[in-house]
């Protein structure tokens, strides 16, 4: 996936360092960072702090335990440890950690929910089409 559009309005400081992990770019946020808007990114995202809007990445998304996310999330593997409100699409696997709280519909190929996680929403499994990207 190419980078088509990236709008990252950092009210605080958004660290967009070109951190590379496994040869891929990683967009890494800290606990005090805020991302509002739409991010389309060729790489992985480590989300912390506050995220609002829409995030589509070609790599993985992991949401830290203290993070507060109100956004549409789309990625290959999505791992949630914090609070997320919004639709989540995982082209491969979605993992809800034991402290994760997710309110929103899910489209995934594989799903793992750890004991202690909270989920409210529809779950659809199977091969993920790129239906989300058209919306």
């Amino acid at each position, binding site marked *: 996936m190419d980078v088509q559009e990236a709008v990252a309005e950092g009210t605080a400081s958004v660290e967009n360092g070109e951190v590379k992990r496994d040869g891929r770019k990683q967009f890494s946020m800290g606990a005090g960072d805020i991302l509002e808007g739409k991010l389309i990114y060729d790489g992985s995202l480590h989300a912390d702090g506050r995220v609002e809007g829409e995030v589509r990445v070609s790599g993985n998304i992991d949401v830290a335990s203290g993070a507060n996310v109100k956004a549409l999330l789309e990625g290959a593997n999505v791992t949630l440890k914090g609070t997320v409100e919004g639709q989540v699409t995982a082209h491969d*696997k979605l*993992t809800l950690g034991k402290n994760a709280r997710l309110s929103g519909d899910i489209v995934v190929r*594989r*799903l*793992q*929910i*750890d*004991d*202690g*996680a*909270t*989920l*409210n*929403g*529809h*779950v*659809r*499994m199977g091969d993920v089409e790129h239906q989300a990207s058209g919306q």
Partner: protein
Amino acid sequence: MSTKRPGSRPPTPIPAGNGSNGQRNSVVLGPRDRLVGQLYIEGNLRVSGTVDGELEATGDIEIAGGGKVSGAVTAYERLVVGSQASLIGGNVRVARLTVEDGATFTGKVTMGKPAIEPPKPPEPERQPLPAAVVVAEPVKPIEQKVAPVQRKVAPIRQKVAPVQQKGKRR
């Protein structure tokens, strides 16, 4: 439909099934077992067979092995979907949820303990107390009599034996 709602059917105060004290009733559907319809269990349920219908349990529900469930699932406590199991297409209402990697899981999930917790039977303290006060004049003996009554009332809801014993005494 009316048989399924937690509100419409408060759990019986007497534990069903096995007589061992304090142990929860447990029902198992084996790999070759098949259920079509509705099932309500006061206790735990373990499914490794095939279920086409609605399941409700006051305890835990585990869909294990190659178990396949199509339909609504309500567990007042915990639902576990094993790595080779599948749960498809139903409304899922649970307090706690574990889905193991590899499981097939589709449907609408509603979590939150207050929404699911079975309503306690609206049995306020039985009130022979005012009557006893009226009948018996001395105060101190009454208090001594009253206190044991209250202590006996509570266990009655949980165990069968005390109920019968008390009936004999009366």
